[in-house]
C-alpha cells in the first residue's frame, strides 16, 4: 500500500519535538550562533524528548524499535527549530545508532545502556576528512591490522563534541573498505585540536579536528566485531539524517519568508500578492514536498531492507542539499535587505543550508 500519514506514535513524537523546537530551540538559536555556544539546559531538554531512546529496544535500555522513517520525521522537526541544536541533541546517536545497526552483541550490551540511560553525554563519531573530494567510501584515514587488533592513522574533521567525548566511532579505510572503530577517550595517539572548527555556519556546534597517530584499537572494538560490518547501511542512515534536517531548515526558511511576505507592504499591497514573490514561495513549497517524499520513501525502503534503499538515500540527500540551498537563498531574497541582516534568522539558515552539500556524517537516523 501507499500511505502518506505518519502513524499515531510518530505523530505524537513529531508534535512533542515540534513544540520543543519552536518553544525552546528556536528562541536560543540566534544567540547560540553568535556566542558559539548552545545552552546546555536546552540540549538536555531536547535529549529528554527521547528520540534516540525510543529507537533502541528494551534489551539495551531503550523503549522502542529503530525506524528510519520515525528518525527522519523527528529530525526534520528538530532542525526546524535550529540545525546546530538538532545536531547537538542527535550527537550521541552518531555513536549509538551504528552500534545498534551494525555492532556486535557485546558492543550493544556494553555501550547502548550507558549512552541512553540518564543525561545527554557526548558520544560521537568521526567520518569527515578535510579534503575537497572527501568521499566516505574512500577514506584517507587508514586502519591496519596489526596482531590481534588494529592501528589507525590519519586526520578527521568536523567531529562534534570531540573534546569531551567519552568515546567515538572513527571511520577508517581498512583494505579499501570503510569500517568503524570504537576509540575511547584519552586513547594513546589521539589528539583533539584545542581550537574548534571555524565555519560559515553551524557556529553553535562545537566541531573539532582529530588526529590519529598510531591509535591502537582492540579486535573487539572494531564495529561489528571480528568480521566488521556493512558501511553502506550506516552511510545511508547518515544521508537520510542529512536529508531530514535539510527539510527542517528549508521549512523554517519557507515559513518565515512566507509570513514576512504576508506582512511586508510595497506599492500598496503585501509583497506576497505580487506573483514574483508568490511564485518563489510556491516553488519553495513544491520542492520541499518533493524532497520530503523522496526522503520518506528512502527511509521506508531502508526499514524494509529493500535492495535499492541505499541508492535512494543517496539520491534523497543529494536532492535535499540542492533543495535547501535554493529554498534558503530565496528566503533571504524575499526579505531583501532585511534578510541580509543577522537579526532575522534567514541568513543563518542560508549559511547552514550550504553545509548539507558536504556535511553528511554529522547526524544519523
Amino acid at each position, binding site marked *: *500500500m501507499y500511505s502518506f500519514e505518519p502513524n499515531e506514535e510518530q505523530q505524537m513524537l513529531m508534535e512533542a519535538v515540534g513544540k520543543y523546537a519552536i518553544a525552546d530551540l528556536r528562541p536560543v538559536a540566534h544567540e547560540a550562533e553568535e556566542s558559539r555556544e548552545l545552552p546546555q539546559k536546552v540540549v538536555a531538554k531536547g535529549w529528554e524528548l527521547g528520540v534516540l531512546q525510543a529507537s533502541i529496544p528494551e534489551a539495551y535500555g531503550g523503549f522502542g524499535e529503530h525506524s528510519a522513517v520515525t528518525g527522519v520525521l523527528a529530525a526534520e522537526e528538530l532542525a526546524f527549530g535550529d540545525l546546530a541544536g538538532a545536531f547537538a541533541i542527535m550527537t550521541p546517536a552518531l555513536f549509538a545508532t551504528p552500534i545498534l545497526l551494525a555492532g556486535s552483541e557485546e558492543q550493544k550490551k556494553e555501550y547502548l545502556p550507558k549512552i541512553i540511560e540518564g543525561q545527554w553525554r557526548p558520544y560521537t563519531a568521526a567520518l569527515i576528512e578535510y579534503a575537497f573530494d572527501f568521499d566516505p*567510501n574512500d577514506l584517507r584515514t587508514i586502519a591496519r591490522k596489526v596482531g590481534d587488533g588494529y592501528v589507525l592513522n590519519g586526520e578527521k574533521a568536523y567531529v562534534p563534541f570531540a573534546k569531551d567525548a567519552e568515546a567515538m566511532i572513527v571511520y577508517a579505510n581498512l583494505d579499501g573498505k570503510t569500517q568503524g572503530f570504537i576509540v575511547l577517550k584519552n586513547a594513546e595517539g589521539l589528539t583533539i585540536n584545542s581550537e574548534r572548527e571555524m565555519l560559515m555556519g553551524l557556529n553553535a556546534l562545537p566541531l573539532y579536528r582529530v588526529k590519529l597517530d598510531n591509535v591502537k584499537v582492540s579486535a573487539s572494538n572494531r564495529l561489528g566485531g571480528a568480521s566488521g560490518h556493512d558501511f553502506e547501511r550506516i552511510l545511508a542512515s547518515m544521508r537520510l539524517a542529512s536529508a531530514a534536517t535539510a527539510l527542517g531548515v528549508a521549512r523554517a526558511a519557507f515559513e518565515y519568508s512566507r509570513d514576512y511576505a504576508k506582512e511586508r507592504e510595497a506599492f500598496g499591497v503585501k509583497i506576497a500578492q505580487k506573483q514574483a514573490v508568490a511564485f518563489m*514561495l510556491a516553488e519553495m513549497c513544491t520542492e520541499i514536498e518533493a524532497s520530503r517524499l*523522496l526522503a520518506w*520513501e528512502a527511509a521506508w525502503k531502508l526499514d524494509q531492507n529493500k535492495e535499492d534503499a541505499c541508492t535512494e538515500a543517496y*539520491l534523497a540527500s543529494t536532492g535535499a542539499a540542492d533543495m535547501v540551498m535554493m529554498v534558503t537563498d530565496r528566503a533571504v531574497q524575499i526579505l531583501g535587505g532585511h534578510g541580509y541582516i543577522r537579526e532575522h534568522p534567514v541568513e543563518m539558515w542560508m549559511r547552514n543550508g550550504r553545509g548539507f552539500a558536504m556535511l553528511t556524517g554529522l547526524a544519523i537516523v
Partner: protein
Amino acid sequence: MSIEFESPKPIVQAQYVLKTVAEEMMRSKSRYFDEHEHEIPWDYIEFMHTAMKAMGGGSLAPKESASPEGRGDKGEGGNGKHPPIGYQLLATQIETLAWGDVGMYLVTPGGGLGAAAVQAAASSEQKAKFLARFGGEKPTFAAMCMTEAGAGSDTASIRTRAVLDEKTKEWVINGEKIFVTAGDKSITEYEKLGKGFIVVWASIDPSAGRAGMRAFVVEAGTPGVKVTKLEHKMGIRVSDTAAISLVDVRVPFDHILGSPTVEKTTTGFKGAMATFDATRPLVAASGLGVARAALEFLKEKLKENGIGIRYGLPRQKLTNIEREVIDMEIMLKSAWLMVMKAVWMADNKKPNALESSMSKVKAGDVTTKITQKAVEILGPLGYSREFLAEKWMRDAKITDIYEGTGQINRLVVARQILGYSGSELR
C-alpha cells in the same frame, strides 16, 4: 495510518500487463504516427477497447471496485477493509501508457476528461445516462471543451453562451471552442466508433462572471456542432486537437451539469474546477511517463558507450553527465511520489487542491527538463529522428501547458499556501 511505499498488487499487475502493450502496440508505432499526423491508430483503439471491456469497463476511469487485493474485491471504500486505490491505479496505468507513447495514450478510448467532468459534477441519473456507453460494443470517446481563442487559463472569460429556450426547455448553445483533445473522435461519427459526446463550458449569465459558468453535454450528431479544424502540433501528433464550432446547438434541459440557476456565489464554478484536483495529477503522471522513457533511453545509450552512473560518489568526483543523470533521477522519483500522494489523497477523499497542483507544477518542470537534457546529452543522436528522444522532448512540452500551465498551477499553489483568494493574488 502509516507511511508506506509498497505498490499494491493490482498496480504491479497493471504495470506488468501495460508495459507489454506500451512496447508492442505503442512504442513500435510512435515514429509512424508522429510522421503521419491525423491518421487514426485504429489497431491501438480497438485493442484497448477490447482489453478494457474484458477488465470490466470501457475506459481507464477509476473503478469503484479497485482494491489493494485485486479486482473484484469490493472492499474498497465500501466496507472499510481496504482503503481505495482507484486513482492510484489510474495514475500508474497512465504513466505506463505514456511511457509507451503519450500521444497514443491520449487516444485511449473511454471518457477522458469529458467523462471526468461528468463524473465530478453530474447527478447519478446523468452519470447513468452519459457514462454507460463506454462499456458498449464500439470504442467511444468524450472530450472537454473549455478553451476558446480568447480564453485559456482565464476560464472566466469564456464567451460561449447557453440560453434556455423556455418553450422547448432546451438549452441553445453558441460559441467556438479550440484545443479540444480527442474532439474529433468525440463528435465526428466514425463508423468504427460508438456515439460520443463533448462537455462544453458556457455561460448561462455573462453578467454573473464565474458564477454563471456551466458545463453541458453535447452528443455527437447534434445539429449545429462540428469540427472546423484539426491542429498541427509540435508533438503528441497522433492525438487529435480539434476546433469545434457550435451554432444554435440545442440540447435537452437535463444536459446541464450542476444547477440551472445562478446564485451569487461561485460555488458552482469552484465545483467544476474541483474536477482539476482529480485530473491534474493524472496529467502529471502522463508527463512523467515520457520523462521516464527519455531517462531510460539515455541511460541505455550511455551504457552502450561504456558510461555507467556511479551512485554514491560525492559530487566532486562525478562527471558532468553523471551529475545530470543523478539530478534527473531525483527529479523524476520525487515528482512521481508527489503524484502518488495527490492521487492517494483523492482516493481517500482528502482535499488535495494543493498537492494536486504541486504535483502538476513539479511534473511540468521535470518532464520538460529531463527530455530536453536527454536530447542535449545524446548530442547528434538526440537530435536525430532515428531515435525517439527528440520526439519525447516535443511530446513532453505539452505537459507544462495543458490542464493548467505551470504558471497557473503556481498561482493555485501560492493562493493555497498564502491563504489568498483569487482577488487577493491575481
